[in-house]
């Protein structure tokens, strides 16, 4: 399996030794060695076909397979990179926050529920499951916040990166909330998390 390693907080190295790693298209800034790049679909099975899923998530998630021997340097928009290990569990992630992942991991599209009409985000979110490493993008170093029955969590959707564990996500749309987000920008709703798990956020709004 290809090895992911941080060269710096904003640059990811994928070491390939005749094998494959997967990343979002456009993420490669340089490479050394003999590497080929090929577009790939979202994958996943059950229910919707891959082509339908691609249409539904829109252009937000375009993946490519990188194969060969050498090192690929990946970066995106000077954002910080955070490596997350999955051990048989599932990560629900904003597709725009995904940078790269082991090819052994399964990606799928899940229905995320109805969002505010003014939202530019799709109705679907990306899930990654299995055993392996995922590289996430964060505008500013990522922060992990616990969710537990004693302390549910409310998050600005433009700062939300991913969640894992047994958490349920609901939308809050009360009027006083509108005032919190600038009049000209941002979502007209916020995300509330209940249950037990972890939510990853970035210290910035998209």
């Amino acid at each position, binding site marked *: 399996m290809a090895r992911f390693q941080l060269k710096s907080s904003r640059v990811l190295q994928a070491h390939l030794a005749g094998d494959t790693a997967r990343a979002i298209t456009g993420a490669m800034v340089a490479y050394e060695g003999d590497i080929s790049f090929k577009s790939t679909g979202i994958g996943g099975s059950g229910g919707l076909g891959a082509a339908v899923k691609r249409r539904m998530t829109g252009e937000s998630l375009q993946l490519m397979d990188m194969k060969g021997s050498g090192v690929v340097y990946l970066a995106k928009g000077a954002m910080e990179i955070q490596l997350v290990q999955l051990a048989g569990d599932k990560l629900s992630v904003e597709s725009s926050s995904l940078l790269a992942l082991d090819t052994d991991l399964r990606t799928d599209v899940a229905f995320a529920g109805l969002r505010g009409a003014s939202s530019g985000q799709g109705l679907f979110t990306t899930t990654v499951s299995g055993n392996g490493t995922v590289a996430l993008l964060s505008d500013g170093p990522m922060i992990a916040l616990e969710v537990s029955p004693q302390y549910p969590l409310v998050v600005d959707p433009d700062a939300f990166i991913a969640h894992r564990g047994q958490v349920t996500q609901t939308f809050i749309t009360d009027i006083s909330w509108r005032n919190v987000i600038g009049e000209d920008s941002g979502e007209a709703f916020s995300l509330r998390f209940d249950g037990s798990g972890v*939510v990853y956020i970035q210290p910035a709004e998209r």
Partner: protein
Amino acid sequence: MTEPAPLNPYTLPTDDNVNPYAFCVDLSQQWFMRKGAMIAYYGQAKFEALAATSMAGFVATRFSSPLYAMDWVVAQGQGKVVIGDRGHDINSFDLEAGNLTIRANNLLSFATSLELKQSIVPGFLTLYGTGKFIASSNGPVIFAEPPMRVDPEALVGWADTPAPCHHFDAGWMQSFLGMAANSMLGINSGEERQMDFVGEGTILMQSSEIMSEDPAVVRMIESQLGGLGTGGLQRINHVTAQRLAASQQ
């Protein structure tokens, strides 16, 4: 880099940085916050627009800036709120019976024990009193001392020092005086015009901001158009068109 350890309301810092780009305030006191500052919170938090808050009377004594009032809310309740600003560096400062003037875009939140007024310099706000305020900057804030000249775009604020004057580079001034009377005041960079600080005190700087729109500056200019006659309005129109053309680069 290993994953960050998950934080919760008990392990989140109280009125301190979570990391260089995020700050956590405890709602055991009330805070003025810029809209959009809130990233996440635990507990029962209420964010009310200054006009709509139940504490309108109190707010009016503390927040004396009609130009910026619509960009701010009061945060109160119980719990912890994590704030951030475009991934910029966040730092808190304690004022003790002091005063500090800061660019509105760089002020993120402040304790309601402080008073806020509009500075004479457009785009800047002055804080008075004792209490904590939280600032955001593009890269860590750089502190320097007068005498010094600063590119207006790089200026974050100043404390305990007289307000600055404009300084125009002598070479530029000479060529400007030689130009035709109705040519545009084409000041484009900090080499030609700076903010001039003298005396004692502290100056705060950052790598210059991309001059994105400051809605408050736009509001201020709009409000002043009413005082102009046709000649003045046509002149503004001409200058605006030229600036727009120049910025298409």
